[in-house]
């Protein structure tokens, strides 16, 4: 096999390799949030009462709703992989669209949560927080940092899925060539996984 043809280089396609690479990237994201979880666990251990009290300021209903939203969106994007395998382009686009809509709903909820807190004067560097106990300052610092970083990943995930939707529409992604759809789904599940841990650690320690 003589490789004098540049086009040959572009023909190298390795779906298994693409998936392996995506998984390793997911590991890096897990380690990234893992660092914040390390900080959370230490400060939680050192300030149990303050964390408990601070958590009561959060709205369990919105938190649970957001959890349900993400879980459903995880299901829909997983289903999108099945539908493309079954050559159902229309259903694939519908399922991916639902995933994006649910993600946006999550962001809307988050917006109301954050603006609610901020209007009550609970945000990093605020006067009210300055007068609270150290544990409470830490709790809310971690709350904003972790849910903020998570929200950033939701935005990235939405962009990724939207891009892949375009590829599905133009049939660059189809039933025999869809690893990028799988990878975007993996990324979305990662975002869901992180929230699966954020939810109890911030909302359910009351």
């Amino acid at each position, binding site marked *: 096999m003589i490789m004098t043809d540049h086009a040959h280089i572009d023909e*190298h*396609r*390795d*779906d*298994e390799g693409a*998936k*392996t690479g995506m*998984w390793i990237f997911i*590991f890096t994201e*897990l*380690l990234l949030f*893992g660092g914040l*979880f*390390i900080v959370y*666990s*230490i400060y*939680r*251990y*050192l300030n149990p009462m303050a964390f408990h009290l601070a958590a009561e300021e959060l709205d*369990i209903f919105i938190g*649970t709703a957001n*959890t*349900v939203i993400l*879980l*459903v969106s*995880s*299901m829909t994007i*997983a*289903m999108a*992989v*099945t539908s493309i*395998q*079954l050559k159902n382009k229309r259903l694939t686009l519908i399922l991916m669209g639902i995933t994006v809509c649910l993600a946006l709903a999550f962001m809307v909820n988050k917006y109301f949560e954050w603006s609610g807190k901020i209007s009550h004067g609970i945000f990093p560097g605020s006067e009210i927080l300055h007068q609270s106990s150290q544990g409470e300052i830490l709790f809310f610092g971690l709350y904003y940092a972790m849910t903020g970083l998570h929200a950033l990943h939701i935005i990235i995930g939405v962009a990724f899925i939207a891009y892949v939707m375009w590829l599905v529409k133009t049939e660059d992604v189809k039933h*025999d*060539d*869809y*690893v990028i759809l*799988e990878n975007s*789904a*993996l990324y979305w*599940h990662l975002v*869901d*996984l992180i929230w*699966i*841990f954020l*939810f*109890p*650690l911030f909302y*359910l*320690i*009351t």
Partner: protein
Amino acid sequence: MENAQHTHIVKYKTFVVVLLLLLVFTFSSVAITQYDLGVYSVTAALIFACLKSILVLMYFMHLKFDKKFYTIMMAGIVLLIVSVITITFLDYLYR
């Protein structure tokens, strides 16, 4: 060099069942906050979180149907994070 996709197709129904289980675990974890478990409140919350994660990993993320080494790598990562947290706690627990 493999070009072929793995052809295993997960049924829609499987995903729906997994979602229902996930919702059950979610509502259970909320319900359990009604009880005062003291120190163990974290444990209870985390147990449900772990169960949910395993479902998401194995079914939504397809680990159950992929080559075993992905699951092994994932387990390794979890072990690594847990070990690092544990060793860090050796400092704070015994100060």
